[in-house]
């Protein structure tokens, strides 16, 4: 399962759009896309749109937790957008639903940034 990652810029920062299963095989690709964003720095926010992700395992969760830690270091806001029911279920199993800021769509996630 190949994962497709698209990076877009908007006023306050970047949007990462992920399509495909995020597992031990593909999460290194997600991580390196995130690293490029953090290397650029200087943004106010990072949005990660997960609408195209139907499967995520602990390596994907770990990648998002790392992203949150990097965002905190850089003073960036991290917002997760459009979690599918299977991904939402994994977040609940991991008791992480309350730790991330989760939005229903990109518009709402961009509001107030």
């Amino acid at each position, binding site marked *: 399962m190949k994962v497709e990652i698209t990076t877009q810029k908007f006023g306050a920062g970047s949007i990462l759009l992920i399509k495909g299963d995020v597992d*031990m*095989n593909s999460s290194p690709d997600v991580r390196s896309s995130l690293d490029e964003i953090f290397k650029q720095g200087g943004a106010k926010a990072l949005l990660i749109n997960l609408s195209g992700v139907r499967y995520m395992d602990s390596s994907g969760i770990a990648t998002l937790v790392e992203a949150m830690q990097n965002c905190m270091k850089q003073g960036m806001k991290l917002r997760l957008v459009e979690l599918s029911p299977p991904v939402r*279920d994994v977040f609940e*199993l*991991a008791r992480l639903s309350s730790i991330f800021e989760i939005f229903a769509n990109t518009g709402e996630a961009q509001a107030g940034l």
Partner: protein
Amino acid sequence: MAEDRRRKTDMTRNETGPVTLIVPSHPKYLYVVRSALYPILTDAGFGRKDARRIILAVDEACSNIIKHAYEGDPTKSITMTVAEDADRFIVRLRDYGKKADPAKIAPRDLANIRPGGLGTLFIGAAFDTVTYDTNQEQGTLLTLEKKKQRVNV
């Protein structure tokens, strides 16, 4: 449109299984493991959410074999056997790598927000019994069992 009748394929449940899948210890085969499991689980009568959680758990157990038992060597192999009897759905994972130390295998403290340590938590969430058998000549035999919900039809 006088008549609307819905039929479901009626399959005489036969207990002939098991199904065995052998894949190399490269993470790209996790997708093959997940794909093969799905139809077995729906046929076994699991609903979508249970099926998803079982698939997640098996994926995590395979990832752990790749990471810990084989220390990232992608040229070894993982053997998955899936079987059911009247009461239980059973997944066995066999590796030939570094033996697991059951004492060290524990889910992480959820209060501690850090990456890692979630795999064993997900395994425990999906299965009722998790047994690491290291009494093999080589490697580990992990047995994951889930009780079947008894539905009286």
